[in-house]
């Protein structure tokens, strides 16, 4: 469809008040022709639609040493189509040090959620850019150290004054070093000096929580150093990036903004024929499909390799294919060229039903929302059907040429993650193990039999430095089994551990199919003879295993040890935590009061005991034990 036709359809959709459709058309316009004029148009329309759509708001402050303003419509349009309403503040031209250091600066008054420090080598350390042949080795070394000291000052000031995330550009290398090819033959050439600064920046980002590095130099290289720049405009109005480069920088920002706002895909659902291998297994048979080290099968090998990389990043995989299940699964299990095997997949829907229906089943089976699913299929008709009937699903457009499939996945910002806990790395595996558990449950005679057959083990311990990052992540991401939904950062949890009245618990869990990792957490605060449960949560992957009872049992045991007479709990309802509504009632708590904001429950510790279920082997590491 042409951009003009798309715009007409957007207008029609708004008139007919089919707002989701209007948003989908705007997204298509940005996919097909992401120009500044289309982006400006998309932003204007989204501003009209904003009250009708559920968008995640995000305030982005860009601190810069050059003219970057024309990126605003491109960035906002890209964010809008990703479900993010971005407000963009651009810092005063070349005043980034003052902005960062002065607590009263417009930057901090803007109260950003995300700060971006976009400075160029030519501005931040001009001596290393175009005067480097004047300098000796020692002077160059001093420049490197001085520049890193400046960055440290700016980053630490930002960290002190703001709780926002900070994204720092690396410095770019010159297209032509001042000493020509000689530069690479000597120690401390121009390129090495700049690379050392970038290396130092990486350490600085690692030292400062919530600080991330954007490899600007790699971005420029990816798109071609000579094409990236517009020298005329760099020299006249200090706008170095050529018109065609701005969208790529906006896309790079989105790679960070998506994981920081949670607008990512948790699962990737893939087709089989002509997506994971060439040809149709139902027609050509196991030996007939193209897959392996030789072209054209090698294109599909690369695609599978890219998907395996996503699995290792914690993305859950599932199959949705129109095939005979036995034939297709045999190919997945036995074809010598397969990189992905049945154990990598958390769900299979291999049948002749509509893919829309199968995607719904997969979402149910994995207990994730449709908006957490990305769909990969070579067939444009299937993609269109999913797009029009399940607008929440992120549909990835594959090019016609399978050689480009792997790159398409690598370019896709839906799968970006900014931190990888051990739990994240194993997530794909957990969900694949869940499939085996479900199969066992179908065969079990009773629920209790099923629990016993799982051979569950829990380990409950008091939180320490090593477990705090994961606990913080759980408080921020757990929506369903979360009694109070209080979000906490790692820093806030660290402060709480210093309070003698507060205890933070966490729970690891495993069964015969595998390790769930750290999936439960609770925070308790003692007050007189009462012990109040401030937070109590369980990751959705551990729901339905009675693990919550084991954790609550340990809380009550610890409270008793701490001489408390009553255990107090709150249930604060949200849109998503209905699953936890009856938690206290079913564990013998009595309702003390109920108000609009939530209900308060109490358990008399002198009257009863909360026991760990007999089918869970529970190791307790409590205080005073």
């Amino acid at each position, binding site marked *: 469809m042409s951009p003009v036709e798309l715009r007409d359809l957007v207008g029609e959709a708004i008139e007919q008040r089919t707002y989701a459709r209007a948003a989908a058309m705007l997204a298509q316009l940005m996919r097909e022709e992401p120009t*500044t*004029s289309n982006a*400006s*148009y998309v*932003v204007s329309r989204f501003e009209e639609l904003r009250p009708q759509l559920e968008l995640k708001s995000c305030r982005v402050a860009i601190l810069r040493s050059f003219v970057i303003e*024309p990126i605003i*419509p491109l960035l906002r349009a890209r964010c809008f189509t990703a479900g993010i309403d971005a407000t963009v503040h651009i810092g005063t031209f070349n005043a980034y040090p003052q902005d960062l250091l002065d607590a009263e600066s417009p930057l901090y008054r803007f109260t950003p959620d995300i700060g971006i420090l976009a400075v160029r080598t030519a501005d931040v350390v001009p001596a290393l850019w175009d005067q480097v042949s004047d300098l000796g080795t020692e002077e160059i070394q001093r420049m490197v150290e001085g520049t890193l000291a400046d960055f440290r000052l700016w980053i630490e000031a930002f960290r002190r004054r703001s709780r926002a995330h900070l994204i720092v550009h690396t410095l770019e290398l010159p297209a032509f070093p001042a000493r020509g090819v000689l530069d690479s033959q000597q120690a401390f050439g121009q390129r090495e000096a700049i690379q050392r600064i970038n290396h130092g920046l990486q350490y600085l980002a690692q030292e400062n929580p919530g600080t991330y590095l954007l490899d600007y130099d790699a971005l420029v290289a990816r798109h071609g150093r000579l094409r990236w720049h517009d020298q*005329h405009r760099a020299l006249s109005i200090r706008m170095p990036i050529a018109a065609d480069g701005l969208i790529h920088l906006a896309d790079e920002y989105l790679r960070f903004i998506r994981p920081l706002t949670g607008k990512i895909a948790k699962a990737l659902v893939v087709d089989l024929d002509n997506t994971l291998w060439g040809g149709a297994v139902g027609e050509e048979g196991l030996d007939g499909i193209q897959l392996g080290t030789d072209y054209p099968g090698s294109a599909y090998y690369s695609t599978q390799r890219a998907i395996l990389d996503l699995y290792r990043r914690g993305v859950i995989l599932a199959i949705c294919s129109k095939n005979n299940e036995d034939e297709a699964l045999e190919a997945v299990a036995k074809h010598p060229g397969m990189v992905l095997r049945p154990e990598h997949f958390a769900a299979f829907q291999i049948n002749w039903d509509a893919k829309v229906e199968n995607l719904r089943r997969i979402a149910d089976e994995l207990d994730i929302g449709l908006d957490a699913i990305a769909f990969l299929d070579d067939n444009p008709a299937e993609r269109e059907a999913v797009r029009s009937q399940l607008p929440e699903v992120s549909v990835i457009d594959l090019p016609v040429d399978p050689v480009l499939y792997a790159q398409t996945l690598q370019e896709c910002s839906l799968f970006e993650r900014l931190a990888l806990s051990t739990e994240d790395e194993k997530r794909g595996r957990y969900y694949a193990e869940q499939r085996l558990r479900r199969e066992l449950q179908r065969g079990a005679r009773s629920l209790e039999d099923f629990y016993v057959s799982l051979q569950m083990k829990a380990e409950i311990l008091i939180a320490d430095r090593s477990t705090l990052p994961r606990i913080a992540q759980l408080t921020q991401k757990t929506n369903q089994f979360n009694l109070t939904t209080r979000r906490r950062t790692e820093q806030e949890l660290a402060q709480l551990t210093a309070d003698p009245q507060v205890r933070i618990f966490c729970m690891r869990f495993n069964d015969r199919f595998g390790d769930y990792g750290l999936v439960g957490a609770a925070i308790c605060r003692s007050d007189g003879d009462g012990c109040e449960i401030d937070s109590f949560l369980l990751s959705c992957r551990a729901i339905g295993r009675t693990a919550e009872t084991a954790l609550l049992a340990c809380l009550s045991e610890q409270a008793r040890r701490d001489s408390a007479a009553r255990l107090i709990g709150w249930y604060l309802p949200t849109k998503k935590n209905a699953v936890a509504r009856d938690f206290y009632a079913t564990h013998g708590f009595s309702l003390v009061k109920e108000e609009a904001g939530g209900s308060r429950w109490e358990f008399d510790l002198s009257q009863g005991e909360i026991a760990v279920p007999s089918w869970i082997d529970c190791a307790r590491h409590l205080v005073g034990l």
Partner: protein
Amino acid sequence: MTFEAMLPRVRQIAADVFGLPLDAVTGQSSPETIENWDSLQHVTLVVALEQAFTIQFLPEEIAEMVTIERIATLVEQKQAVVGTSLAYHLSKARS
């Protein structure tokens, strides 16, 4: 592309960039008549035109872009130059 064909395309791009309906932008529109047309929006307009017509403006030309009509003329001339030089390179390649 002729000037007559160019003018509506330039008007549409300017309307998008300034967030206005198409009929609010005419050939005579200028920074004096359009409130949003400040120096930064001017740069955004330049970028939008460059993307749409695959051209690159020189700093001198950017300073000349004072009305929509003037811009349309400039874009048309630049496209003609790109076309000519392309034809020149192609003929050289053939010979």
